[in-house]
């Protein structure tokens, strides 16, 4: 940690030391927002975070007084530097948030609901659904077409004559026009 201690609230500082042992290492910096702006420690602070070459989490104190700086800080930290910025109202909130962050880091990745994969749809169902999007084709015709030609790729490379044998002249022409023009 390369920030001068006076810019950090002490209890936040020690919590971040706890984190440095964790495997998915993320540094947490906690700084009063107005200190960031008024003392112009901005550039040096973020330089040090960037140098550490790991994604940093910045926790800022967002109060009625410091509110006016928030948007500018957020723009810099999140949009320009690509780091994480989380606002809190006071030190109590900061310690609660850090506790949750630590808890999340120590958990198994699979327990994170936002990382869990949705059960993927059966490939047959997806292909069936796609073929039904061809104008003039409903469930019955989609099934006939897929039973006959096997894949969307094959279907796209089928002549209108071949299609006619399966779905009749009018719809065959409609399908052919949709796929090939």
């Amino acid at each position, binding site marked *: 940690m390369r920030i001068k201690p006076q810019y950090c609230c002490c209890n936040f500082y020690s919590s971040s030391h706890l984190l440095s042992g964790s495997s998915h290492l993320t540094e947490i910096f906690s700084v009063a927002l107005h200190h960031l702006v008024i003392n112009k420690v901005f550039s040096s602070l973020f330089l040090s975070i960037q140098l550490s070459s790991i994604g940093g989490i910045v926790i800022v104190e967002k109060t009625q007084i410091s509110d006016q700086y928030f948007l500018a800080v957020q723009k810099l930290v999140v949009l320009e530097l690509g780091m994480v910025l989380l606002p809190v109202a006071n030190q109590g909130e900061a310690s609660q948030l850090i506790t949750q962050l630590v808890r999340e880091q120590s958990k198994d990745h699979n327990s994170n609901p936002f*990382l869990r994969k949705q059960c993927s749809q059966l490939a047959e169902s997806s*292909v069936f*659904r796609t073929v*039904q999007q061809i*104008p003039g084709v409903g469930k019955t015709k989609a099934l006939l077409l897929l039973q006959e030609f096997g894949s969307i790729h094959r279907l796209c490379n089928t002549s209108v004559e071949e299609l006619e044998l399966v779905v009749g002249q009018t719809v065959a022409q409609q399908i052919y026009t949709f796929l*090939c023009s």
Partner: protein
Amino acid sequence: TALSRDPLEKKPSLCILVDSREISSGAEVISSLKAVHGVKVQVCSLSSSDYIVSNRMAVERKFLSELLNSVNRNKVTQRIQRLQSMFERICVIVEKDRIKPGETSRFFQRTQYYDGVLSALVQAGVKILFSSCQEETAGLLKDLALVEQRKNSAIRVPTEVEGHKQEMLNFYLSFPNLSYLAALNMCHYFDSVKKMANSSPSDIATGAQVSLQKAEEIYRHLHYGFDVQMLPENLCAKGRSNAAAKS
């Protein structure tokens, strides 16, 4: 505002896609995007996300109150999970709830659940931005679109489609885990569905503006050998599925 000072503002016009449901819940976001920020706003039926600001980034707008307790847990996680499967980048904008007329200012009691949601989002690589009102949200959306433009991911294709192109779009939108924008890009890049179906994964990646991994997923979908035995019975026949639903 820093509108005139920022040299980036002079760049070619930005385009943002907005889900049609936002017309009612985010009217001021939309009007502010157009009037204050001069962004081209295209309202369409995105269904999966609230906004799309580039070829690869989806943005969800959530009220603070929706994240404070677990009432909306399933809805929120399912939305994000779905976006994770479709987009390379996801951003959640946490917006302060609007104070309704006659209501005294809402007291925001931070909860452990809220901190847990933020932590999980951070861990999942989801970008989080905080906004105090709809106008601010509009500014953040514009900033996101600008950053994405700088990284060569801006939306460049025409966003309005009609007739045959609209039918092609619907066809592409049925592909598993394909984003609205990837489908839109494919519509404009490939002259016909047949051309697209005969393309290599790297051509598809170029055409749809997606990663090679995503392009390979599309390629597999196109070439998948359909086996009717594997199709769930309820999909085969309408009559059967109705009967199953009743029992």
